């Protein structure tokens, strides 16, 4: 029973990590109507920035973490300026394909610049797990979960309550309408990408803290994708619930079903949930009901 509860808690915390990465998807979508397939690559770029500032440049954590976040924001801004600004008003297909192009472009660049070598990642959160009776909870995931919830509440407030957040929401509704209302579509998309890159970097810190860093870590982007869709692409608060549900489902499948069938069903459970939600309720749990059905 203790192990069962422990599995549920660990699963929920991993789910919250997925939520944080998925928040990158949602923030970019929520402020620019662009679905960013290259989210996993942003995570890995964030990871390399953190690695560079701490391990390579030898800065202390208190200095390197804010610096990394600033640098990541700059990278996000640069990507937006180079690729996305030019596509305002273009079709969905163009937007999707540019981020797909970005996905392989960034992966290639990371490989070219940093190579396939495995690197140690700085220990940002204490390695020692938290013991709760017989239960054992990884510290990085616990702190990460708290950060995720704080970020979700904060961003949710920003997008739903503040004036600039609502402006960005209008951009996500319709580029043309928003710009004719005097809202800067360019500015909104720029803010979105800066935020997305910063969130990805925080995700990278939690995910990789004390582990090793290779370009393959970008797979977390695709692991987080089902969470974003399950919650609905416009809902930031909903990500928490969606992440927890998917994390628990995955953890229970991995721990109890996989030994029975001898496979790794756990790794596809999020995708099965994603397919199901796309078929039953394409807007996700909390998304806006704007998806056109045929």
């Amino acid at each position, binding site marked *: 029973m203790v192990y069962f509860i422990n599995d549920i808690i660990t699963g929920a915390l991993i789910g919250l990590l997925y939520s944080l990465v998925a928040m990158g998807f949602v923030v970019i979508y929520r402020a620019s109507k662009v679905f960013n397939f290259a989210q996993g690559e942003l995570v890995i770029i964030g990871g390399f920035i953190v690695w560079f500032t701490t391990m390579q440049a030898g800065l202390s954590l208190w200095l390197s973490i804010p610096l990394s976040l600033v640098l990541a924001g700059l990278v996000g801004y640069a990507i937006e300026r180079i690729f996305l600004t030019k596509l305002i008003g273009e079709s969905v*297909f163009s937007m999707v394909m540019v981020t*797909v192009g970005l996905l*392989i472009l960034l*992966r290639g660049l990371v490989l070219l610049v940093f*190579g396939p070598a495995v690197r140690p990642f700085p220990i940002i959160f204490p390695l020692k797990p938290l013991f709760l009776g017989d239960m054992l909870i990884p510290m990085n995931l616990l702190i990460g979960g708290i950060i995720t919830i704080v970020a979700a509440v904060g961003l949710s407030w920003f997008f739903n309550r503040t004036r600039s957040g609502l402006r960005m929401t209008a951009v996500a509704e319709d580029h043309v309408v928003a710009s004719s209302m005097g809202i800067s579509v360019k500015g909104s998309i720029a803010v979105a990408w800066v935020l997305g890159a910063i969130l990805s970097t925080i995700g990278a810190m939690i995910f990789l803290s004390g582990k090793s860093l290779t370009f393959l870590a970008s797979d977390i982007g695709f692991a987080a994708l089902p969470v974003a*869709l399950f919650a609905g692409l416009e809902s930031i608060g909903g990500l928490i619930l969606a992440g927890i549900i998917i994390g628990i489902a995955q953890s229970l499948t991995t721990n109890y079903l996989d030994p029975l069938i001898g*496979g790794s069903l756990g790794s596809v459970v999020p*995708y099965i949930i994603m397919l199901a939600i796309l078929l039953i309720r394409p807007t996700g749990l909390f998304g806006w009901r704007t998806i056109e059905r*045929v």
Partner: protein
Amino acid sequence: MALLLLAPYLVSSRIIAILNMMMISAVIAVGLQICTGYAGQINLGQAAFMGVGAYTASILASKTGLTFLLTIPLAGLSAALFGFLFGLTAARIKGFYLALTTIAAQFLFHFAVLNLPSTWLGGSNGITVPPAELFGLRFVSESSQFYLNFAVTAIMVAGAFGIVRSRFGRAFVAVRDDDVAAGIMGINVAATKANAFLIGAFYAGVGGALWAYLIRFVGVDQFTLFHSIFFVAMIIVGGMGSIVGALIGVFIIRIIQEIIATVGPNIADSVSFLGGDIVFAGMNVVLGGVIALFMILEPKGLMHRWNILKSSYRIWPFPY
């Protein structure tokens, strides 16, 4: 055309190998062109469909010993069935949500191969494929395979020209341009979308079977999301909504790939820390850059440029 038939006698075997790859890619890219370019259904799972075809062909060939005359169409059919399942989701959702389900197809394929019992699909070891054989003639050498690929590719491409001219093809274009209007004109939109996936996946399956007979080995790593994106890059470069465009795109992307594969190892010697990954990395950088550049500068592809050039030549010296 006739010159192409004589190619094995005219050029070196290296070029024949490249031509083989090009023809197989052409079959798959033409299928993607019908699905994405004509019917407007974003498909990021073409490599998974190709994989289904390749696995079907190799299992049929290695376990039942069926002739390739049967395994290639059957591979196409099984891939078509797989594609149709995902096409059904296209009947309900559109735009990039669709792209997400096709990505899910990619992951499910990967999972199925790796996690089903390895006696079924070979697991992570892959499957070795016996060579194609007809009347005691074995398609082993590059040049004999050239004829096999050439025959199949010619049939498939000719078929594609037929399909896009037929009522199906016109329905695809109508659905792509405006599905509501198409529905009002009496086109069954859902069925048309599912059909587009069916046909696109059939082409991918046939291409996959050819691939299995060419490489004589299939493994799950040959059919990743990256390969799907490469195929999408081909039709974007060539031009959406044109069969000839798909062929041009295949030609250009494969040439780029060859250049990188040839030049890459030389560069790798000077920057040794990258090792063998430089080809993959270079490929990604170039193709990602190409996709983004074309989407920003020329979303309609090279075929569109060519058409502009052609019409301005025709009406010269008048501007219009």
